[in-house]
C-alpha cells in the first residue's frame, strides 16, 4: 500500500511552487493568449520535470534538449520558418529604416553593463540578449555561451515579447510629445523587383557573416528561409517552412526548454533578478529607438515620427502594429504601418547581428 503515498511524500515545497509556475504559464498562454505556442509547452514541460522521480526529466525531455537545444539546432530550424514568414518589401523600399533597428538594440548592451554588476560576464551577456526580443537568438546565444540560466532567460524573453503591447506604449508616451506622435509619414508605394528580393537574403548573409562570423548560423538560417519564400520556385517548401516546420519545432523547443525549469535551477534570487533585467532590456530598447529617431529629427528637414523607432525591437509583427495603432489614436489619418513594419523587420536582422556580436565578444 505504501506505493500509493511513497512518491507523494517525496514532493518538496519547491516542486509544488514550480508546478504552480507551470500552471501559471499555461494560464497566461490560454487565458491571456500570451505567446501560447511557447508558453503552453514550456508550462506543461515545467510540470513534467518537477514531479519527483519523474522519468520525463532524464528521459524524453533530456533527449530533446540534447538533440535540439544544447546544440542550438531547434532555434536555428525555427529561424528558417521565421525567415519564410517575413516580407522584407517595406524595408527594401526604404533601407534607411534599418538604422532604427540598429538603435533599438541599445537595450542589449545597456543590460549587459547592468547585469555585470550582479553576474559573471558570461551570464551577464546571456541575460543581456533577452533585449534582442527574439526567442531563438536568446536561446542560441545563452546556450553557446554556456550560461546556467537558459531556462530563466527563455521564460523572460518569451514572456516580455508577449507583454510588448503593455511595455512599449508608456515608454513611447514618456519620451515623445503629442505633436511628435502626430507627425505624418506619407508612404510612397514603390515596387521591389523579384531579383532584388532574391539577392537580398544572399547579400545580407554574406555581408553580415563576413563581418560577424559568429552570426553566420543565425543570419544564414533566417535568410535561407526568406530565400525559400522569395525564389518563387519552392512554394511548397515555403509553405512547409512557415507552417509545419515552424509549428513542429515550436512544440519541441517549448517542451525541451523545460529541462532547465527544475526547482534547483529556477527557484533562486537570480531568477527574479534576470526577470527584472529582462524588463529593463525591453524598456531601454524601446527608448533607444525612439530617442534615435528624435536625434535624427534634429538634423532632418523631413520629420520622422519618433514612435517608429520603438518598432525596431525584434518582436515582429507586434511592435510594428502597436506603433501603427498609437499613431492612429493620435491622428486617425496617420498610417504608419508600412514604416513601422519596415523598422520591425530590420530589428529582426539587427537583433541577430547583435547576438553574433555578443558571441564574438564573449565566447
Amino acid at each position, binding site marked *: 500500500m505504501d506505493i500509493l503515498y511513497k512518491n507523494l511524500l517525496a514532493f518538496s*515545497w*519547491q516542486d*509544488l*511552487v514550480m508546478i*504552480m*509556475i507551470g*500552471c*501559471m504559464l499555461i494560464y497566461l498562454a490560454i487565458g491571456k493568449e500570451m505567446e501560447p505556442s511557447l508558453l503552453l509547452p514550456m508550462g506543461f514541460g515545467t510540470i513534467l520535470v518537477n514531479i519527483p522521480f519523474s522519468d520525463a526529466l532524464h528521459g524524453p525531455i533530456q533527449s530533446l534538449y540534447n538533440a535540439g537545444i544544447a546544440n542550438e539546432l531547434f532555434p536555428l530550424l525555427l529561424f528558417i520558418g521565421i525567415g519564410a514568414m517575413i516580407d522584407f518589401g517595406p*524595408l*527594401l523600399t526604404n*533601407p*534607411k529604416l*534599418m*538604422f532604427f*533597428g*540598429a538603435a533599438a*538594440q*541599445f537595450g*542589449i*548592451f*545597456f543590460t*549587459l*553593463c*547592468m547585469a*555585470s*554588476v*550582479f*553576474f559573471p*560576464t558570461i551570464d*551577464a551577456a546571456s541575460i543581456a540578449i533577452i533585449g534582442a526580443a527574439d526567442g531563438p537568438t536568446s536561446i542560441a546565444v545563452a546556450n553557446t555561451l554556456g550560461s546556467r540560466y537558459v531556462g530563466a532567460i527563455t521564460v523572460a524573453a518569451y514572456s516580455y515579447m508577449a507583454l510588448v503591447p503593455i511595455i512599449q506604449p508608456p515608454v513611447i508616451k514618456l519620451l515623445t510629445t503629442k505633436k511628435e506622435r502626430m507627425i505624418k509619414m506619407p508612404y510612397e508605394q514603390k*515596387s*521591389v*523587383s523579384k*531579383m*532584388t528580393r532574391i*539577392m*537580398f537574403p544572399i*547579400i*545580407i548573409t554574406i*555581408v*553580415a557573416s563576413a*563581418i*560577424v562570423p559568429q552570426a553566420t548560423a543565425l543570419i544564414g538560417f533566417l535568410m535561407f528561409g526568406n530565400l525559400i519564400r522569395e525564389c518563387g520556385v519552392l512554394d511548397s517548401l515555403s509553405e512547409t517552412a512557415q507552417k509545419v516546420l515552424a509549428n513542429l519545432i515550436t512544440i519541441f523547443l517549448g517542451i525541451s526548454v523545460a529541462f532547465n525549469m527544475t526547482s534547483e535551477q529556477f*527557484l*533562486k*534570487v*537570480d*531568477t*527574479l*533578478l534576470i526577470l527584472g533585467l529582462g524588463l529593463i532590456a525591453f524598456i531601454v530598447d524601446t527608448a533607444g529607438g525612439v530617442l534615435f529617431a528624435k536625434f535624427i529629427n534634429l538634423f532632418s528637414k523631413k520629420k520622422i515620427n519618433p514612435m517608429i523607432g520603438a518598432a525596431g525591437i525584434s518582436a515582429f509583427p507586434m511592435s510594428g502594429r502597436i506603433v501603427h495603432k498609437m499613431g492612429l489614436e493620435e491622428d486617425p489619418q496617420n498610417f504608419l504601418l508600412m514604416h513601422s513594419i519596415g523598422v520591425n523587420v*530590420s530589428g529582426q*536582422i*539587427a537583433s541577430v*547581428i*547583435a547576438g553574433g*556580436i*555578443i558571441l564574438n*565578444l564573449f565566447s
Partner: protein
Amino acid sequence: MNLSSFALILSAATAAPDLFFNLGNFVHNLKYMGIGMLVIFVVIGIIIFAINIINYLFSK
C-alpha cells in the same frame, strides 16, 4: 498578488543567492556597449549600401 506570485517571491528570497555586487563592472563593460553599438551601426550601414546597390542594379 496571487498565490503563485507570492510563493515564487518567498521561495526566491529564501534561496541562497549566488550573486555579487560590483558597480565597477558597469563602468568596465561600457566599452563593450560602445564597441557593440558601433559594430551594429557599421554592419547595418554596409547592408543599407548593399541594398541600394541591389535596388539600383535590379530595379524595374
